[in-house]
């Protein structure tokens, strides 16, 4: 957090680093929009970022996780929804 303030002081853009990544080898196409639209809360996948000192990967984003949620929420489980 102090780092961020320093950045602010130096008026430099923050250098964000991706902590929640899907490997290209997974051949998955994820977009936030449809998920935010139906009101999936950010922590579901990102964890309680506010509570983290240093951001880290909260959820093991494997297919089981996605499919489970999709089935629960009645979202499409058509492979093509994510893999194309």
């Amino acid at each position: 957090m102090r780092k961020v303030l320093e950045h602010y002081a130096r008026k430099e853009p923050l250098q964000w680093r991706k902590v929640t990544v899907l490997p290209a080898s997974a051949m998955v196409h994820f977009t936030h929009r449809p998920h935010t639209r139906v009101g999936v809360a950010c922590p579901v996948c990102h964890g309680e970022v506010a509570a983290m000192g240093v951001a880290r990967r909260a959820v093991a984003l494997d297919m089981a996780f996605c499919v489970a949620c999709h089935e629960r929420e009645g979202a499409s489980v058509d492979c093509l929804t994510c893999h194309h």
Partner: protein
Amino acid sequence: MNPEDERLLLAPVERGSRGLRLGLVASALAAGVLCACWGYQIAHDLGVAGINRPVFWGVYITNFVFWIGISHAGTLISAILRLTGAEWRRPVTRCAEAITVFALAVGGLFPLIHLGRPWLFYWLLPLPNARGLWPNFRSPLLWDVTAIGTYFLGSSLYLFLPAIPDLAALRDRATGWRRRVYTWCALGWRGTPRQWHALENGIRVMAVLILPVAVSVHTIVSWDFAMSLQPMWHSTIFGPYFVAGAIYSGIAILVAVMAALRRGLGLGRYISETVFDNLGLLFLTMALVWAYFTFAEHLTVWYGNEPAEMAVFWERVSGRYAPAFWTMVVLNFAVPMLVLPFRRGRRPGPASLVAVGVLLGMWLERFLIIIPSLANPRLAYTVGRYVPSGVEWGITFGAFGLFVFLYHLFLRCVPAVSLWEMRAGAAAESDTSLAPEPAREGVR
């Protein structure tokens, strides 16, 4: 049957011989070629093979069909002979059943070898998973998996069950670690009447059960092709056609192997000319059956004269694949017809030569069924051509090596001819030889 018979039959197992050791090493090297080529292919992707578009299947699938066909030698034949109680089966069954098991082992490799991502082969098995995925039982490939799996398990047991008494015999003669191993394998066989009773019943029931499996296996292999829309694949007689071809090639390799054992292990006394004579007749029959199916298949296509199918037809008989086609006809039909009808032609020497020819011919037949159809798809724009690559040839060669290697191992562990069945045979013979005498007395 006297002790020196025993010694002779057990010699390969207990002492081995230079020939056997040589064969073992040579075939091991050949099998190594397969491993090396496959390793290279996995490292450098399937692209190192000659297959392409539209010829997506090449010699790998050819080999698959060929070896699964070969596997029909043993189990099927020995089962038939056992059930019909043909006396001349006794020296044949064991080495025949062994062929089945090892041919299946080799043939079963090829579907894996030809996969684009072989390390994922287990996705073809119905394994529970959290991702909601499941294999597709409508796919003939899954039928293959189940059928071949069953057949492999079944014929292994069918090989093992009748071998128990001989394993016990070996156990009783062996010492040291070998003894321990045989003890385990022989399952404490003692040869009590109760055990013999159970064993014979078991063998009989197995023989009944294994037959329909054997038939189904190659039928299903043929359905891999017949289920598709490809010209000259989509044929109703493919099932019986393939089974006939399978038995044909099976008998061919059986004849070849037995001739080899005869010379290599000096088993002439047991694997006698009579055996070859009988096998030869069966061989001849299958040659005719195969020819009949082949003729029917091509006649139907030619007379139907459907353009897409004719493209393949002409490609085979007068096109790029004509040389292969006519070689096949000569090896699989002409030569057997000229040799096998005659008693002298059915003697080990000529018969085994014919058999080798038929093996080559049947390999070509598989090749000719697969490639020309793929190379001439319905939309004629995409005419294909296919030249197998070095890797493919290497693996094909290595497969034979692997087969021979496994067979050599087998010869070093279990007598190639079933001791107890020979004994039983001998006993039965002596009974019959004694029988006439009282009759003669009666005359007096």
